[in-house]
């Protein structure tokens, strides 16, 4: 085990980033065009990084597996983006956004990174508005804000329930401009399958063309992974079907540390599962908790009647309803952070007070809001979400409460990066959800969009320059044997997958893995359950490599092959997540160990033993990974038991 240095600059919190920017080396403008940079993924982090670096003059190659960069899963983010503008005059500040984010993350994120995030948040809004992103506005023509879970100020900027779409289309337009100018070469329907290291430095990637199967190598002075999170390890999640861990996992197997893999976010307000055919879960934006009230029936008897359909939700009397978040957390009410809201919904279901046909749901009720504001006002705020809910469930949320239940939504863990967003492999960077850095053990609502764009627009353009200036503009030797060697390893693995002609589909393995992860590494975890899960995953993985069916060939469009490669990686990641969860014998944020809770049933941290980032080091196939630690120093905030009472 070794201790990791995050390279956080010295000095007062508010001066760290400014000082650091000054100390970073610069690349001479005339030299910038001599550098090539690879950006993998075109979501908010990738598109903003690719566009910003191209604007500076670097030659960028950008890659995405979708048919267009505009389809990256950032597009599906609904609720909004935080920024410490204090336009509402309600007491917000950079420090408050910093503090809320550190506290919301249950004190498992770095002070330096989080402060920088809060600091640049204000620039993001300026940038997006300049691009023509149509944020919601007040009648006076100025920008509107709303409040979001885990905060007591209104600092969330939004574009109806489609904020991610509008921000991504803004970044996509900036990317398009650079493609038009010839500074970005865009590769769509292309999947990264490995990273190429030359003398320990990242110098390129190996990709597969998803149309004709061509395996190609690409060289560059640096490689940026902006490939999103790994929530699909649970099979069912709110992620897009194609979202996967492969790029990050391949980098991990080449030496990049994977940090806090067990920190996953289970979002409280999603549409419940209807059956085994279910392929994904749909989120209902957290913003709904501003006006919706969460409740479950007070007694098991009423719950049973609701489950059987003998009575309707509207027929349950006021005194028979338990608005459990308002009851337990009077100061935050329905706006407690996501991890707290999710665990409480699970408690209701475990207490047999769940609703809906399966009994695995609670209500999110808008009757009060409609009575108070009118149906039109509610529709103006949440219309598209209500429509989406109706399409999926065939139930009208204007006349009866929504049924909701938590679902996997976001992964706080990811590739370990230092303050410069560099992994421990020189030249290899990770941005956005792909890295682990800013959200600790729980992410606050409307902070993912903020982090993706902060990393891409405002951090990497500075920090990457320092590295590039250090290594110099000498062209990368694309003929170095490491490229061909890595390419051959990728081809061998594809051939191995294509040779699988067993009896069980890849999707069936994925679903089995998801069941194990949800059951034992989901909202509540125990040493016993995690130990069991480890054995189950290991057996499932062994079975996969014997009995999976992979149809078709490499030299064609072959989604079965694509999926097989991704699931094979999830089967390895799953085991690491369980190891990480087992090692962390405390509860914090979204990681809830039943063995470690307060008398009130809240997450109980163990700061003496676990105030560190767990950065796992790959040691070879079927070898235990080695734990490296980055100690978290809290110079500016005082660690307290999180309370939203």
């Amino acid at each position: 085990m070794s201790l990791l240095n995050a390279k956080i600059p010295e000095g007062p919190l508010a001066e760290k980033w400014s000082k650091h920017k000054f100390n970073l080396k610069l690349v001479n403008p005339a030299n910038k065009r001599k550098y090539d940079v690879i950006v993998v993924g075109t979501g908010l982090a990738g598109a903003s990084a690719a566009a910003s670096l191209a604007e500076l003059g670097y030659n960028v190659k950008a890659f995405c597996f979708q048919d267009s960069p505009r389809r990256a899963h950032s597009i599906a983010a609904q609720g909004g983006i935080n920024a410490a503008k204090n336009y509402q005059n309600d007491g917000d500040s950079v420090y408050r956004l910093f503090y809320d984010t550190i506290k919301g993350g249950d004190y498992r994120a770095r002070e330096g990174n989080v402060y920088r995030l809060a600091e640049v948040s204000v620039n993001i809004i300026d940038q997006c508005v300049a691009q023509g992103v149509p944020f919601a506005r007040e009648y006076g023509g100025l920008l509107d804000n709303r409040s979001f879970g885990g905060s007591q100020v209104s600092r969330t900027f939004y574009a109806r329930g489609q904020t991610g779409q509008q921000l991504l289309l803004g970044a996509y337009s900036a990317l398009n401009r650079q493609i038009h100018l010839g500074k970005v070469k865009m590769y769509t329907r292309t999947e990264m399958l490995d990273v190429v290291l030359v003398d320990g430095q990242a110098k390129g990637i190996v990709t597969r063309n998803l149309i004709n199967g061509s395996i190609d190598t690409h060289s560059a002075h640096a490689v940026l992974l902006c490939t999103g999170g790994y929530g699909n390890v649970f099979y069912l999640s709110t992620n897009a079907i194609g979202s996967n861990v492969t790029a990050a996992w391949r980098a991990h197997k080449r030496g990049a540390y994977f940090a806090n893999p067990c920190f996953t976010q289970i979002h409280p307000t999603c549409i419940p599962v209807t059956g085994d055919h279910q392929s994904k879960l749909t989120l209902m934006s957290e913003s709904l908790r501003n006006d919706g009230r969460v409740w479950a029936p007070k007694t098991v008897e009423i719950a049973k009647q609701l489950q059987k359909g003998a009575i309707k939700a509207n027929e349950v009397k006021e005194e028979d309803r338990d608005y459990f978040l308002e009851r337990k957390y009077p100061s935050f009410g329905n706006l407690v952070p996501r991890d707290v809201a999710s665990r409480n919904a699970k408690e209701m279901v475990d207490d047999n007070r769940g609703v809906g046909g399966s009994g695995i749901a609670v209500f999110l009720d808008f009757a009060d809001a409609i009575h108070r504001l009118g149906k039109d006002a509610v529709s103006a705020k949440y219309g598209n979400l209500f429509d989406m809910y109706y399409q999926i469930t065939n139930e009208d949320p204007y006349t009866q409460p929504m049924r909701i239940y938590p679902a996997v939504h976001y992964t706080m863990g990811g590739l370990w990066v230092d303050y410069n967003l560099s992994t421990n492999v020189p030249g290899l960077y990770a941005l956005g959800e792909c890295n682990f850095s800013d959200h600790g053990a729980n992410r606050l609502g409307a902070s993912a969009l903020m982090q993706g764009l902060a990393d891409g627009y405002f951090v990497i353009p500075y920090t990457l320059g320092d590295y590039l200036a250090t290594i110099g503009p000498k062209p990368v030797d694309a003929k170095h044997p490491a490229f061909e060697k890595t390419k051959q390893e990728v081809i061998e693995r594809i051939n191995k997958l294509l040779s699988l002609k067993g009896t069980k589909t890849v999707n069936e393995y994925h679903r089995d893995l998801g069941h194990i992860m949800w059951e034992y590494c989901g909202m509540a975890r125990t040493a016993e359950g995690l130990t069991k899960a480890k054995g189950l995953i290991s057996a499932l993985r062994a079975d996969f490599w014997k009995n999976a069916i992979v149809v078709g060939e490499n030299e064609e469009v072959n989604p079965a092959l694509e999926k097989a490669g991704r699931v094979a990686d999830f089967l390895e990641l799953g085991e690491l997540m369980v190891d990480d969860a087992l090692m962390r014998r405390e509860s914090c944020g979204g990681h809830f160990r039943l063995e470690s809770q307060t008398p009130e049933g809240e997450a109980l941290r163990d700061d003496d033993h676990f105030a560190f980032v767990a950065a796992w080091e790959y040691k070879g196939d079927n070898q235990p990974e080695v734990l490296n630690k980055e100690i978290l120093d809290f110079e500016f905030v005082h660690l307290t038991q999180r309370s939203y009472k």
Partner: protein
Amino acid sequence: MENNNMNLTLKVWRQKNADTKGAFVTYKAEGISPDMSFLEMLDVVNEGLIHKGEEPIHFDHDCREGICGMCSLYINGRPHGPKGAITTCQLHMRSFHDGEIIVIEPWRAAAFPVIKDLAVDRSSFDRIQQAGGFVSVNTGVTIDANSIPIPKVIADEAFNSATCIGCGACVAACKNASAMLFVSAKVTQLAMLPQGQPERWSRVQAMVAQMDAEGFGNCTNTGACEAECPKEIKMTNISKMNNDYFSAKLFREEGVHEHASSGE
């Protein structure tokens, strides 16, 4: 719920790649729950095909919540199927009945060549956006967001245009395979906002020129695009774009030069 399950007959367009001819192939979809989405129904059929060692039906899809624009499918003669204002991934099987025959085709347009089965190449849409669908601002040079007040009605209108997901249903619905609704949505969004003014005249000309170069057809005002658009983008966008286009052509030819010189 078991007794509500349906048995369906699918007639699906299968085509190995862009260079081979395609044909309809008939499949049975059995025990389909009304709660399944249309794509989940296809997943079930595909799992069955894989178990038999056959190649699954290829279709584009990703977010499965109606926003990424990746899914397509021409279902019983309509883009995104029989219901209005939703994408195929949001279509649920309760919109069909037991015993029904469902015909599933790819988008059909010269500018959208088939890649395989039901998936088509829509990169022409990206190239149109690259031609001018942006405001030329670099990262970091901006002014405070609230220093540009925009009347709420205008912001809301611009937002309505901006909700386009780039799926291509408008092209698939149009007998001329015209992309006017798609192009006009972006042109109009930026033409309505103060941020879009400096490049307003050059943008419309550049995007329309690229649209023509890609081989999309002309608009003859049949309105099929608006009727089938899953995001309900209005044809008034097309009128506004035409207005800007002719203004630019007649009175503001210099716009083109401005645009070219903004290149470097």
